[in-house]
Every structure is written in C-alpha cells, then in structure tokens.
C-alpha cells in the first residue's frame, strides 16, 4: 500500500507555468465576481448607476462645453429659467445652465471621491499594516497618532486646514485624505493582527522568510479583500465630505462641484424662489452616487467574505 510512494518519479519534463496558472485563476475569479454581481439585483443596480455617472463625468467636455459654466459666457441667457428644450435643467440666477453644472459637478465630485479615497486608504493601510505587523514600540506610537486624529472633531480640523491652505481641488483631496484615514488604519491593523497569528505565517518564518516576504506574500493578500471593501465605503464618505466643505464655501472657487452648486443655489435664494431645478439635480446626484457605492460595496464585501457569502446564497 504505502509502497506506491516509493515509485521513482517520472523523468518527463513538467509543462506547467505558474504565471499562466495564476492568470487563469485571476480570470476565473473575475468571472465568478461577475456571476455574483449579476445574481444580486441590488448590487447590479448600484453598479449600473455608478457606471452611468462615471461615464457622464468622463465625457463631460463632449456633452457640455465648459463655457456653459461661465457667467460671462452666459450673459445672453435668461436667469432662473425653468427646464426647457434649450436648458434641460433650467438656468441659475446668472443664467448659467444647471445641466452643465450637474455634468461638470459629477466630474469634480467623483474625482475628489476617488482621489481622497486613494489617499485615505493608502495612508490607513500603510499605518495599519506597519503598526499591526511590527507591533511593540512602533505600534504604540502609530496607534496614539491614530487615536489623536480619531478624537479631533473632523469638521473643524478640515475647516481649519481648508482655510490655511489654498483653495484648490488638490488641497480638498489632501484635507479629506489626512483627516479620514484613522478608521481604515484601525480596521487594517486588526486584520493584520489576526493574519499574523495564522499558522501559515509561522510556517513562512520557519522556512526562513524575511519580513518583506511575509508581508508581501502572506499578510497583504489576506488583508487586501478588506482594503478593497473599505475603498467602496470610503468613496461615498469622501464625496459627502467634499460636498460639506464646498457647501461651507471652502471649495476651489474655479471648480464646479455638486456641493458648490448647492452652496450657490442656497446663497442665491433658490429655495425661497422655489427654483427646485437649481438645487435638486445636484442633491439627487449626490444621493444616487453615494447610495450606488454603498449598495455595490456591501455586495462586494459579501462576495469577498465567504462567511457573508453563505448568507447571501440563502437569500437568492
């Protein structure tokens, strides 16, 4: 019985490419992901809305000339015009097209949302991984810093930073990024601490693996799903934050975002004039994008986390 083990090994050259196998595996998991999203109607709806807004933001210059945002170029237009053929979403108090503001606003809001998220998740993941993996003194220092950022009331800090810095788009991204990373850091650190305890990390150490190897090959791949799920939840938060800052008048004066549209509509008295076409598109746009991200993010989280997946399997 056991003698089968002792057979000499075949001498034929082995045709196996680990890279090709990994690529095939990746393709298969993308297909799997697509299958899950297709099966989950809510996630699918979220994804469609998202893609629609992203496409609109990308092609903004093609469907709506930037000139439409300029008050000087809109001098000939009627002010406070209701939606019409010429102005599908009406005009504002300066005669500018609200539709143009909506389209260009999506561009800025989404850009800030994604850019700030990259910064937030980047800082948060780095701090979380370093803190969780190295532990001890490094961990204490980084976690005190994280706590410090966590307890500072976010909005006042953001306002102070936005006031000190120039009012540019990049500074808004920077303000959101440096103020919202602590929760990601905490989350990632907790996950790193669990993964670090796993036996396969022990095995890698016993094999002689260095820290870089362990982090790259074992910690990161097992923390990545959490980070990815965190991204989809951080984007809507960043968009909302940008809206808040813009509404408070802290945005880049040269850029139209949905928050800025709301601020201007409010300042021009759109509400008392009952000019719903001025503020409603931006407001609904924010709600739609945030909701779409949250729904898609939740589905993604379920798909990436097998424990949650079982539950979703039952629901279908």
């Amino acid at each position, binding site marked *: *019985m*056991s003698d*089968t083990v002792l057979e000499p090994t075949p001498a034929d050259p082995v045709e196996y490419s680990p890279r090709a196998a990994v690529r095939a595996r990746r393709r298969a998991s993308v297909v799997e992901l697509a299958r899950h999203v297709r099966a989950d109607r809510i996630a699918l709806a979220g994804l469609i809305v998202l893609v629609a807004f992203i496409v609109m933001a990308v092609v903004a210059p093609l469907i709506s000339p930037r000139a439409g945002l300029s008050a000087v170029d809109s001098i000939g237009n009627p002010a406070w015009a209701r939606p019409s053929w010429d102005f599908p979403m009406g005009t504002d108090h300066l005669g500018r097209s609200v539709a143009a503001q909506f389209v260009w606003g999506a561009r800025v809001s989404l850009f800030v949302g994604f850019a700030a998220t990259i910064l937030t998740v980047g800082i948060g993941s780095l701090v979380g991984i370093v803190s969780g993996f190295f532990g001890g003194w490094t961990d204490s220092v980084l976690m005190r810093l994280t706590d410090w950022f966590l307890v500072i009331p976010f909005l006042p800090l953001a306002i102070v930073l936005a006031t000190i810095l120039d009012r540019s788009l990049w500074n808004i991204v920077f303000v959101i990024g440096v103020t919202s990373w602590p929760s990601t850091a905490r989350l990632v650190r907790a996950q790193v601490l669990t993964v670090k305890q796993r036996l396969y990390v022990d095995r890698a150490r016993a094999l002689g693996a260095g820290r870089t190897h362990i982090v790259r090959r074992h910690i990161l791949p097992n923390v990545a799903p959490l980070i990815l799920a965190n991204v989809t939840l951080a984007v809507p938060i960043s968009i909302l934050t940008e809206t808040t800052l813009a509404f408070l008048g802290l945005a880049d004066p040269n850029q139209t975002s949905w928050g800025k549209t709301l601020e201007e509509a409010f300042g021009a008295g759109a509400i008392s004039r009952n000019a719903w076409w001025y503020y409603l598109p931006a407001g609904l746009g924010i709600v739609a994008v945030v909701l779409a991200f949250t729904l898609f993010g939740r589905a993604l989280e379920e798909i990436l986390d097998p424990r949650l997946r079982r539950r979703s*399997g039952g629901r279908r």
Partner: protein
Amino acid sequence: MSLLELRNLRVTYRSERGDVPAVRGVDLTIERGQTVGLAGESGCGKSTIAGAVLRLLPKDTLVEGSVLLDGEDVYAMKPGQLRAVRWSGAAIVFQGALHSLNPVRRIGGQIEEALLLHAVDLGLDRGQARRRVGELLERVGLRADRARSYPHQLSGGQRQRVLIAMALACEPDLLIADEPTTALDVMVQAQVLALLAELQLDRGLALLFITHDLSVLNSTCERLVVMYAGRVVEEGPSRELFADPRHPYGRALAQAFPTIGDPASRMHPSGLPGDPPDPAALPPGCPFHPRCDVAVDECSTVDVSLRDVSAGRRAACVHVEVTT
C-alpha cells in the same frame, strides 16, 4: 422494544451544487443499556446520523426512512414532545467542548437551564434544580463549586465533563457521544472514557459512541458498526470484529492504530491509499473499490449489500461467502 431503531435511514443535504447524499440507507438498532460504536472517517455520514436521531439537521435536509426512539417516530413528533425527547430520551455530547458552551455564562447556569426547561417533567423547583447541578458535577468528577466557573476557566477535559453532566441532566436513556475525546490528550481521553464506561454501568445508559478510532470503540463498546460512504459496511460484536474484520475497510481501520509490541506493525505503519470519497460523487459499484487492495472486476460494477458472516456479524463485501 429497542431503545433506538433506525430503519433504512437516508439523509440528503441540499446544497447550491445539488443534492449530497450523506447517509444512504442505514439500519441500526440499540437496545437499552447497550453500547454501540459507530466508526468511519470524516464525511462517511456518522455525525449526520447523530444529528438525525434528534432532528438537529438543517431544516432543508431531506430525511427518509424512520428513526424510532422507544418505538416512537422522532420525525412524527410535535415540537413539545420532541423537546422532551431531546433531553430525557436521548442527549448528545459533541466534539469541541469549547464551542458548545456559552463563554459568558457560568457553567452552573447552563446546566440549570437544561434542567429548568424540563422542570415540570422532572418535578423540580429552582432550589432543587440548583442542588441537582451540584450532584451532576460531582457525578462527572468535578467539584460542585465548579458551577460558578466560566468555561474558559476550565481545561478541555473539564469542559468535556461539563458537557457530559449537561447531557445527563434529564436522565436520558441514550447518550450519543460524537467524537467526545478527539481534541483531548491521551490521559484526559482515558479519564473521559472511564467516566463514560462507569456511567454506562451504573445508570444502565445506552451509548452510541461515534469516532474514527476503532481501537477506542473496541475498548468501550459491545457492538461495532463501521460506516463508509453513507452505508454500514460491517457490523458485529466488538472483539470479534476488531480481531477479525471481514470488510477490507474494517480491516484498514482496525490496523490504523498499531498494537504496541506487535512486530508486524513495527516500522510498518499501515494505511489506505487515496482519500475518502466525495459524497456528491461516489464511485460506481462498491464505493470502496478504488482504495481496496482485494478488489476484483466485479467490485467496480456491483454494489454489495450487507451479508451474514456469522451470528450477529455482517459485512458488505464480495469476498464474504453468501450463506444460505
């Protein structure tokens, strides 16, 4: 009347990828006070049988055939009746003692809970229930004041004892022990086995003991039942079966743990090639034939049912002569 009787029991799990037959027609009888050992490896359906007896399987599981406890069909019982049976008719001790106990409650409270659920049947009030908890703990070899401990304050062996105390709370006639010693150390395993044997003797408890270690069963049970791929492949009195197994799988299990001092097994561990079959994709014919060292051509096409070997002994193998 037998205490427990399984008649052509079939259990099928429903899953996304289709139906998985876990138990495929098992007949099993346990008399009052009898100890029966159920052996087999993971996935053979032995734990499913434990769950099926007390209707503890997931709701959408398909259970066919009948489970008669004291002559009554468990699957025809009303919820109230079933609850009564679950503790006072038959009780289960699971493997993994840590997960079966609530970590944030004192163990005394957890045992008492079982008692109070059946307080009416047992005729107990709160004070009596509390005293009974102490008695039960002492019965399984723990100090009565252990009732105030939390699960994490106890060792693995002590927790297993607590679970046994809980199972005994309502004086069941049948105790089902599903791998009760797998996670335990040798010495603690011996302690738990000795406790079970002692309880069995002085309470006349019937015991269904489930594990993959045939040598443990041999030392604790009167009868052995060996399962493979959802079916019984061999059964008979322990000593006879263990000393002279007739099914090649029974033989492999009996030899899996060597007899220390036996020159045949010195430097010569014996095992089976291959792996237990996937219940969702069983090989045709006798499901054991791909791993069998005495398989003949016939085995890949004909699935042999249990044949009489001698009085009280049966095995499902073509090599067993059919006696008429």
